[in-house]
């Protein structure tokens, strides 16, 4: 009876069906490689298109390592920034200027960030890595020969991209903590840091954690910037200063060159794995955020 209700319902159902369509089409497309390799796909590091052997381990490891490093760095910097602008360490007008500045990075296209990483940052970083590696060569992850195009650079680029998310959400979280609680602590003589440590950050913790999860999901799915600076090497990662690969970089660089149906199917299977991981992280983040709002 209500025409808008009907049409809008269809639109919503479209979105609902989209997830299922995505999942099932990827599943179908991965059929060949799943039946050929089974579980060993996940633990094999053998990537040989010519011989028809495909193993996802380097890509999965690369995704895990770059995501982990970038999230660690971005959390430290992001939460630190939030503490600076919202935790009482700077006058209010600082927030008004700094926050939009940091947020604006989120508006920069990922290819532009990738270009910056590829042509400007990696040559620069190569020198830094050389320096570190020449002194700390006995630590495997700092081993040479170093290259600017490497896992570390990819992680740094990723962290740059997700800092705004963590910083702005954590900053909001800190500001959402009830003023009475914060003032109560301060009135008792607590320093700013003590107030943060004992009252504010614990209260805001679930929100901050969900923002970190959100940033993780973003890092997992980032393709262009990572592909441009990671080098796409299927060797198992040993040193941070050497090229590697992630699931997204493999798909992006090799899909159009994939010659056999098994090759394509393996790439699809990689996509499926990525989809599942990112769905998991995303849904966790969504529910955590809902939990925070329900409590507040």
């Amino acid at each position: 009876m209500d025409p808008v209700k009907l049409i809008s319902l269809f639109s919503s159902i479209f979105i609902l069906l989209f997830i299922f369509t995505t999942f099932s089409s990827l599943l179908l497309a991965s059929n060949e490689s799943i039946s050929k390799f089974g579980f060993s796909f996940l633990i094999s590091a053998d990537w040989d298109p010519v011989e028809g052997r495909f193993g996802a381990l380097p890509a999965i490891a690369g995704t895990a390592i770059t995501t982990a490093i970038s999230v660690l760095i971005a959390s430290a910097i992001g939460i630190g920034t939030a503490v600076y602008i919202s935790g009482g360490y700077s006058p209010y007008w600082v927030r008004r200027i700094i926050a939009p500045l940091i947020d604006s990075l989120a508006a920069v296209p990922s290819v532009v960030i990738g270009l910056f990483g590829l042509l400007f940052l990696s040559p620069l970083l190569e020198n830094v890595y050389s320096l570190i590696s020449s002194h700390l060569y006995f630590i495997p992850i700092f081993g040479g020969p170093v290259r600017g195009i490497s896992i570390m650079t990819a992680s740094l680029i990723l962290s740059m991209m997700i800092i705004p998310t963590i910083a702005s959400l954590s900053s909001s979280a800190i500001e959402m903590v009830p003023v009475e609680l914060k003032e109560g602590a301060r009135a008792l003589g607590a320093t700013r840091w003590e107030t943060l440590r004992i009252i504010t950050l614990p209260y805001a913790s679930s929100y901050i954690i969900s923002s970190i999860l959100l940033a993780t999901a973003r890092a997992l799915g980032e393709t262009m910037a990572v592909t441009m600076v990671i080098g796409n090497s299927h060797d198992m990662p040993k040193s941070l200063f050497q090229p590697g690969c992630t699931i997204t970089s493999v798909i992006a660089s090799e899909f159009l060159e994939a010659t056999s149906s098994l090759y394509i199917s393996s790439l699809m299977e990689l996509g499926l794995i990525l989809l599942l991981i990112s769905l998991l992280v995303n849904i966790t983040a969504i529910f955590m955020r809902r939990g925070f709002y329900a409590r507040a």
Partner: protein
Amino acid sequence: MRELKDRIAASASFIAMILAVLPILSIIAVTFAKGAWRISLPFLINEPAPPGQGGGIGNAIIGTFMMMVVASALGISIGVLSGIYMAEYSQKAHIFELFTDVMAGVPTIILGLVVYLILVRFIGFSALAGGVALSLIMMPIIARSTEEALKEVPNEVREAAAALGIPKWKAVLHINLRAAEEGIKSGLLLSTARALGEAAPLLFTAFGSQFYSGLNLLQPASSMSLVVYTYGASPWEDWRGIAWGTALLLLLITAFMSAFARRSR
């Protein structure tokens, strides 16, 4: 001692803030420095040429435009309608909200794969397929921002419309959407800026191209974002310069759109 800790926290967080601000400042500076002098009329109009022979990104600009038209048409229609459903009609809105948010979180390269599987296998690499892939990025953003904007319309507006004897669906289309105008517009701008900057979903849908193909939606197409990716990674100085120029262009366009979106909030 307690004061010392506080002082350390102050310094550490200040350093963190500097580190957080450094990236955007350096990206803007470097992109301007390397790209500004590349932008010229020939640059904007010409087709790509072999390295060393000039050439431009004219076809990429057209390609971007075509794909954005397709993406917007699909993204806005399904997105706005879905937002309307969630805000005005749905009893179980949180379920739809969940799926919408999940859709927004799907890695864009996966979107490219899906459109490849579902569309490209039948109609080939094309601007149309690229547009569809981009629309999948825009849809959930528009849906949620439309929903939020409609939810902010105060109930008294709905009551006034009902008391005038206006049927619900007419009220939604003519009064509620109008009242939620600003929020909806800013959602449209933000999602457009987002789609403009994406290249991953276009890799296997639009595929990229070196030629003008008129306004033919069924031919492979290039986009500014694809240019940055392919030319940036190329071994030729010349082409890398084109990548910088295109990057600057993209930066300026998305910056303007995001600024507009913020102002209409």
